[in-house]
């Protein structure tokens, strides 16, 4: 070995170098970056307005003028898919962030304080986890009504118990460690112990779970939008584009192929990222 690692590298630098050597992480991160950049650059990459109706250009096949063809309203599909990304990508990130934050708070409380609070919270989690995410989301949409924001809230709620369970068990594990006892003995308060000593320990499993969760949330979000419960016409969310163009896919394959591929590529990137993070940060979970 000619390039021995310098001794005083920070944990962050070590983690980054481990991530750089994990092929699935590199592939996932690159693909995700490309997708995000394309979505952000939509106004530069296409001159078309994603919602502008142009009856004359109805159902045109892909051409140099319309890269992904046009839909039954003559709207440019390339523009719709590109702009749709800014509605569809948050479908993965927002619900999972909500679920992870709520799960961390509940799991920390249950694991750290224990006792009746733990018992009560965990029995509630047992009940909560029994509701299949899509169905729980359907129930929440029945209460809140349809719409993109409501779907994101609904999906976020559906995934909270998974994070709560995982965080709680990580907290229980961390609590048994010597340095947590030491911090207590040195007079640190509960809040300080939780934030400074316990929280950093649970962030790795949460990150791994969240990155995989993003893939599932994008799929579930696209499905709910496809069912017509989220984005309302003419918003170009990917699932909504598919359900919108559904009756015309027979004559116009491009209405199905492109938005679907966009969803699949994004989910693939999120899955690769998740696999990579897990392999690099938490090898014992490796599947």
């Amino acid at each position: 070995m000619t390039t021995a690692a310098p001794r005083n590298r920070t944990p962050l630098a070590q983690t980054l170098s481990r991530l750089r050597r994990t092929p699935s992480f590199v592939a996932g991160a690159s693909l995700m970056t490309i997708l995000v950049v394309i979505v952000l650059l939509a106004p530069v990459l296409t001159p078309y307005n994603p919602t502008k109706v142009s009856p004359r250009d109805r159902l045109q096949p892909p051409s140099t003028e319309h890269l992904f063809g046009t839909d039954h309203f003559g709207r440019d599909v390339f523009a719709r898919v590109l702009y749709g990304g800014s509605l569809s990508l948050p479908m993965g990130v927002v619900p999972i962030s909500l679920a992870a934050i709520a799960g961390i708070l509940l799991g920390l409380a249950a694991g750290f304080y224990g006792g009746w609070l733990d018992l009560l919270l965990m029995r509630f989690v047992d009940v909560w986890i029994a509701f299949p995410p899509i169905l729980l989301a359907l129930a929440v949409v029945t209460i809140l009504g349809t719409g993109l924001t409501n779907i994101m809230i609904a999906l976020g709620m559906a995934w909270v118990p998974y994070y709560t369970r995982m965080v709680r068990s990580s907290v229980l594990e961390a609590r048994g460690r010597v340095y947590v006892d030491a911090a207590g003995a040195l007079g640190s308060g509960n809040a300080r112990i939780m934030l400074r000593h316990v929280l950093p320990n649970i962030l790795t499993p949460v990150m791994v779970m969240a990155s995989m969760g993003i893939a599932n949330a994008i799929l579930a979000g696209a499905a709910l939008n496809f069912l017509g419960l989220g984005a309302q016409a003419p918003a170009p969310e990917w699932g909504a584009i598919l359900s919108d163009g559904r009756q015309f896919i027979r004559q116009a394959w491009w209405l199905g192929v492109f938005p679907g591929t966009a969803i699949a590529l994004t989910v693939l990137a999120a899955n690769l990222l998740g696999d990579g993070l897990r392999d690099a940060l938490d090898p014992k979970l490796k599947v």
Partner: protein
Amino acid sequence: MIGYLGRRLLLTVPVLLGIAIVVFFVIALIPGDAVSAMMTQVKLAPDQMALLRRQLGLDDPLFVRLGNYLAGLLKGDLGVSFFGYHPVLRLIRENFPATLELTVAAMGVAVILGLPLGMIAALRHNTWLDLSGMTVALIGISIPGFWLGLMMIQFFSVQFGWLPITGHGLRPLIMPAIALGVAESAVLARLTRASLLEVLREDFVRTAKAKGLGMRPVVLRHAFRAALIPVLTMFGMQFGTLIGGAVVIENVFARQGLGTLVTKAVINRDAPVVQGVVLVAAVLYVLVNLTVDALYAFIDPRIRYE
């Protein structure tokens, strides 16, 4: 064994009760009540609305309504749909078999595709077969099932006319089962591979190999049995995903079932139907996982003592 199952069963009772209470409150929280929700269909005078409210018990205090709801559940009364006034239990009974058929067929697809893929990947660990198998699995979990369904309809029905989209018998079941099952098969392949790799490293496999048994009998006798565990795990873990997926796939293929029932109910804000289907799905989830736990204990006695 009996003691273990008894304890497990006992723990299930409060969970089931909890599910019923949560479902009740979820719908009780809807702004506006059942009567105003019905008003989208018929118009009633205010005094008639008040009468209907009294008759439906909506004026009672919340805990009385909860008590009535739970008592109704015990008698199999899941309420009445706001639209058409059919008993919810009957609607669920009529639609359940089609959903069950679809999910079982999808599980079949998952096992047929996923189990061999996972086993081959594990037995040829770190070879190109392993790598390509796992790449296929990764793509499998990344493709939205409903989109796969749409594409299959386009190619296999519309273009080539090979498979029917609707109708009776097995043939119209093929495409929806694949659309729902492909992601599950990918999950199963990954689980099987991981669990088989673990088993292949265990002492008893090494002993069997040391005794001079070839790879084939070793794998068949020991490892295959151990591979049953991931199938079970997947079934327990993925049951919720499968039911959720069925909701979407049924809509793609315009199949009858709980999924199309509940989607229509959500759009109409037909609370009792949504409530009923969600309740049934959650109870099924608990029962499936109870069965899975019992089967674990049966296959691997070590699990019981945890």
